[in-house]
Every structure is written in structure tokens, then in C-alpha cells.
């Protein structure tokens, strides 16, 4: 693919190819010809506002059709997009414009108060009438004749804080091509996206759908289940928690029903006649098939580890769920596909991707071009630790390849919490937040097993003071309310300090997190007391 020609390509696509979005509660379907016209109109508008190639344009909005149109228009004009996630909602328009040297900031009309800004002429509505808009003329430090940098995105990376990534056009193109080649789209495919398109993986997927002529549905999470059932997509990309919701439904069936379904489901899998086998599975697991629309042929999950039980249940239901692996900085790395998949692995390497393993087992991913050329607003040394050379990137994940070329992830190099929702949080961030409580001597934070929550093991300054425990719990509850990504479930109190003698510190005096988790989270911790909640 060539991102610079994406709009022309859309214009050449069969008019029957569709983009569907929900607008004010109604489904709106547009052909690619209509999308092409809308992108051209957006280009003309941007140009009339004074936007020129190389200028930066911020977009701060939820999923909507106009987000896609302006994204494509910026690519067409070779201007740079800066995709702001919800994390930026607290910043004013002026703060965003100044901090990121924006020429324009695009926002939805529902946030019209964002026009109340010193630089209001640089704030335009994505989906409403605009008047007196003027892009702030900014000199670009150097001309990017080849449009190598297409924009900036933000990711919760290894530092646990948001950091910026500069996007590399050729890396985006290589990643889209490799994933699409392996996924092998069919003419009747229809891709559903529901995660925020400010998250770059979602944009990669719609670039692929628009370039390769696949129908596209874009919704916000609140319409997800309705869109699945009513619009019958064939391809879905979602975090493990979505698929686990189906697993939960299954396990909440009465035991006899579950047992029957398992017996019939497994027997059906063993049948040599595939059409009969599928028919039986669709009948036994009708609810799940219907909830997913009934046409699903390729569901992909990644972003966080997927439970083996979930993958096995989907296999038994004959619902095609496959694990993938990639990182925003690099793009896709490996993918399981129909006919080439192993449960427990993240699949074979995508075309053009190679890996090698560092001495400590860390996966070093290699491709001629990766998605991000570098970081900005990151911790010191992070660029050097990650971007080893032009084509080599340190993933931070530890893994191995088997004899057949399937990649397995076996751990993280750094002590990182990955929640069930796929959010990456360095434990030091919530730990320092809890340690700010004057009653706390030390805290250690973990992901709560099988739950979308964090668990904290806390050593109070005075372990005998019951009222201090209540205050700490209240403090942690407030943290959960202020920062939903830091939602805590259990707070487990320890009455013994972490030391080398009790094995909670390593000989180098660093926390032995695995040992602490084994001791306290299993519920067998002596001298510990857990409070499920306050009040």
C-alpha cells in the first residue's frame, strides 16, 4: 500500500464497498465513492483554512465518521495528524495547540466550549458548521519531501505513563500489508472496529480495509453488541475481555447444560464432515453465534494475555478466535490464522518480520521499517533501550519460537502489569500513588488474577492500628475513582515488612514480586488481612 495514494484508491474502489457508522442512534451507510467525495471536500476545507503540507493538526474526538474523513484528508494533504486520546480531555484547546505546535485542532461540535480559547480561530468542528477558521502558520523545521512522518500518537508504554510516538509512513504501510496478506481478506468480508480510533491499531485496520476494499463498520463501544448482532461483521479485533464475556456466559449456564454442550461440542469437532460439524456447533452454541452476528470468520485478540480456557471454548464452539502479537512502536509481529494456529502461541511471524532473542530471552523484532521512528515525551534512555537500530526494536517481552515457527510469549522483561483490558501499567506508578498516603509504609501492586482490577498489598506504618487500615482503604478507593485505569479491588494488609529474611526482597534488595504475589494473592498469606471493600 501507499498511504499517499489511499484517497485515490478509495475513489477507484467498487461503489458497493461500504463504510457504516452510527450517527445520533441511526445507522448510516456510505459507499466508498461517497467517502472519497467527503475526503476531497475536507481537503478543500482544510486548504481554505490555510493548512499546508507538514503542518500539525490535532484531533480530539470519540469514534465518528468525520474522524476517519479528516484523517484521510490529512494523509492526502501530507499534513501531520496528532491523535489525542481521552487522557488529554483535561487539557484546554490552547494548551494542546501550544504544547504540540498545532496549526489546527479538530473537535466534535458536542464540545463547542473548546472554541472558548485564545486561539479560537484554530479550533474547528469535525462535524459542524465552521466560520472564520485560520490555521496557525508554523514553519516546519525541515521539509519532508517523501512524507516520511505522517503524524503522532500516544501510547501507554513501558514507563506506564503516556508517551508520544512519531509515525513512520513506510512502517505503517509494511505493517498493514503484512497483516492483510496473512489475514487473507475475502471480497465479502466486513471488519468491525469499536475501540477508540485514537488508538493507532484501529486506524491501521481501517487503512487496510479501505485500501484492500473490505466493508467497514465503525462504532463506539456502547453500540458494540448491537452492531455485532445486527450488522453481522466477518472480522473482529477485540481485547480478550470481550471474548471472556462469552466464556462467562457459558460457565454461568446450569452445570448439566454446560456438560451436555461440552459433550456434543467435542463430538462435533471430531466429525470428519466439516459442514455437519459446524451445523451442530452452531445449533448447540446458538446464543454465542447469534450474538456475534452469525457470519464471523476471523476474530483476533491480543493486547493482553488470553486465557487458554477462553481459546479452547471458542474452538469447541467453532468460533474462529486467533491470538496475535504486535506492539504499537513496531506494528504486527505474529498472527495465528485459520489453518496455521496453535493455542498458547501468538502465531507465526508476519511476512517481512524476523525475530531474535537477547540473552535474557527478550524478543528483538526486526523489519525493514517499523511504525514508530522514535518517541517523544518519554523517560530518559527509553528511546535507546527500545529503538536499537533502524530495523531492530526491543519489545520488552520474553518469548521463544518452536520448531514450526510459532512464537510463544513467556513473560515481560520489565515488571509490567497488563490488565484484562490491555492497559499497561508500570507497578511503580500506582505504588507511588498509594505510598503518598501518610499511613502507608510500603505498597506492592499486582493485577488481580482473572479480574479487571488491581490488587494492593500494603504494609501500614502501624500494622496494629485498625483505623489506619480503614483510612488506607478509603485513600485507595479515592484513587480508583479518580483514575479508572487504576481501579483497585482487594487491599491486602501485611503486618510484616518486606525483607530478605522472609524472602520478599531479593538479595539485591529489590522486591521479589512473584514471591509476594504467591504469598498474599493466593489468600494463604499468614499475618495478612484482606478487605474486599470499604463501608
Amino acid at each position, binding site marked *: 500500500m501507499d498511504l499517499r495514494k489511499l484517497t485515490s484508491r478509495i475513489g477507484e474502489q467498487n461503489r458497493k464497498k461500504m463504510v457504516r457508522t452510527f450517527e445520533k*442512534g441511526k445507522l448510516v451507510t456510505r459507499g466508498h465513492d461517497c467517502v472519497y467525495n467527503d475526503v476531497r471536500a475536507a481537503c478543500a476545507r482544510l486548504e481554505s483554512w490555510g493548512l499546508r503540507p507538514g503542518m500539525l493538526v490535532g484531533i480530539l474526538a470519540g469514534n465518528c465518521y468525520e474522524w476517519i474523513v479528516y484523517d484521510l484528508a490529512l494523509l492526502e494533504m501530507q499534513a501531520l495528524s496528532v491523535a489525542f486520546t481521552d487522557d488529554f480531555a483535561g487539557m484546554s484547546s490552547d494548551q494542546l495547540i501550544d504544547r504540540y505546535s498545532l496549526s489546527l485542532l479538530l473537535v466534535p461540535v458536542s464540545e463547542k466550549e473548546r472554541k472558548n480559547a485564545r486561539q479560537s480561530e484554530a479550533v474547528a468542528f469535525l462535524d459542524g458548521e465552521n466560520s472564520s477558521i485560520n490555521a496557525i502558520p508554523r514553519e516546519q523545521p525541515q521539509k519532508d519531501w517523501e512524507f516520511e512522518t505522517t503524524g503522532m500518537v500516544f501510547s501507554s508504554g513501558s514507563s506506564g505513563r503516556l508517551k508520544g510516538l512519531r509515525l513512520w509512513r513506510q512502517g505503517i504501510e509494511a505493517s498493514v500489508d503484512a497483516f492483510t496478506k496473512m489475514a487473507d481478506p475475502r471480497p465479502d468480508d466486513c471488519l468491525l472496529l469499536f475501540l477508540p480510533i485514537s488508538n493507532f491499531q484501529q486506524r491501521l485496520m481501517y487503512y487496510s480495509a479501505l485500501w484492500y476494499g473490505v466493508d467497514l463498520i465503525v462504532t463506539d*463501544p456502547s453500540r458494540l453488541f448491537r452492531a455485532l448482532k445486527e450488522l453481522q461483521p466477518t472480522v473482529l479485533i477485540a*481485547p480478550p*475481555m470481550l471474548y471472556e464475556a462469552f466464556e462467562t456466559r457459558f460457565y454461568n449456564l446450569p452445570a448439566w447444560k454446560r456438560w451436555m454442550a461440552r459433550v456434543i461440542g467435542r463430538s462435533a469437532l471430531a466429525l470428519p464432515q466439516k459442514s455437519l460439524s459446524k451445523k451442530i456447533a452452531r445449533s448447540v452454541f446458538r446464543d454465542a453465534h447469534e450474538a456475534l452476528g452469525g457470519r464471523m470468520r476471523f476474530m483476533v485478540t491480543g493486547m493482553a494475555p488470553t486465557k487458554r480456557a477462553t481459546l479452547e471454548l471458542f474452538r469447541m464452539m467453532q468460533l474462529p478466535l486467533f491470538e496475535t502479537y504486535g506492539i504499537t512502536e513496531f506494528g504486527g509481529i505474529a498472527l495465528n490464522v485459520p489453518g496455521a494456529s496453535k493455542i498458547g502461541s501468538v502465531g507465526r511471524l508476519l511476512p517481512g518480520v524476523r525475530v531474535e532473542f537477547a540473552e535474557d530471552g527478550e524478543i528483538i523484532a526486526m523489519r525493514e521499517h517499523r511504525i514508530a521512528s522514535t518517541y517523544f515525551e518519554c523517560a530518559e534512555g527509553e528511546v535507546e533501550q527500545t529503538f536499537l537500530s533502524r530495523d531492530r526494536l526491543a519489545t520488552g517481552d520474553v518469548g521463544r519460537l518452536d520448531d514450526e515457527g510459532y512464537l510463544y510469549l513467556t513473560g515481560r522483561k520489565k515488571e509490567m502489569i497488563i490488565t484484562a483490558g490491555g492497559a499497561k501499567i508500570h507497578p511503580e506508578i500506582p505504588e507511588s500513588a498509594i505510598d503518598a498516603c501518610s499511613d502507608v509504609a510500603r505498597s506492592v501492586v499486582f493485577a488481580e488474577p482473572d479480574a479487571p482490577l488491581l490488587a494492593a498489598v500494603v504494609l501500614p506504618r502501624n500494622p496494629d492500628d485498625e483505623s489506619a487500615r480503614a483510612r488506607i482503604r478509603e485513600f485507595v478507593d479515592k484513587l480508583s475513582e479518580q483514575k479508572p485505569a487504576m*481501579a483497585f479491588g482487594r487491599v491486602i494488609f501485611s503486618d510484616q515488612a518486606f525483607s530478605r529474611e522472609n524472602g520478599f526482597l531479593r538479595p539485591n534488595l529489590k522486591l521479589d514480586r512473584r514471591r509476594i504475589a504467591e504469598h498474599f494473592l493466593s489468600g494463604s498469606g499468614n499475618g495478612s488481612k484482606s478487605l474486599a471493600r470499604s463501608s
Partner: protein
Amino acid sequence: MEVEARIDEQIIDLIASGVSGKFRKVKITRQTNLQKELGLDSIGMLALVFRFEELFGIDIEKQGIDINIAKLKTVEDLIHAGRDIVSRATGAESRDA
């Protein structure tokens, strides 16, 4: 009152069917916290709302009802929201008829 009690019961059944793993042991009361005590994540909440729509035959967005999932903290919150949605949808239907 009887109708409301039936709605409450149906909502509690819906919640119970979406609770996973170790959280199944938790006794569901009106004060039970959906996320902390029942482990319902954002997708779990969306699934719950969608099953509610299916059960009662209501398209919440089409009815113009604004529901903020982030504000639904407890079983009680969900019951109140559910009752409100059903009564507004029923009111709209009778107006349309």
C-alpha cells in the same frame, strides 16, 4: 410495585449471568459494587446493558436516553437506571400509540 419488583428481579438475574470465576460466590445485594465485588469490567457492563435491551425490547440510544455506564457503581444504581429506562420507553410507546 409488582412490575417494579419483577424488573428488579430480572436485572439481578442478568447481573448474575455476567459474573465470572471467583466472583460467582459473592452474594448479590443492592449495595454490591459491580466492578469491585462482581468483577464486571467495561465490556461486561456493555454486554449487560445490551442483554437488558434485548430482554425488554428497548434500544436505549434510539429512545434518546443517555446512560453513563461509568456512573453505574452498584446493583442499586443499575436497578434504578433499568426502571427509569423501562418506564420512559413504556411512556414513549403509549404516546406513540
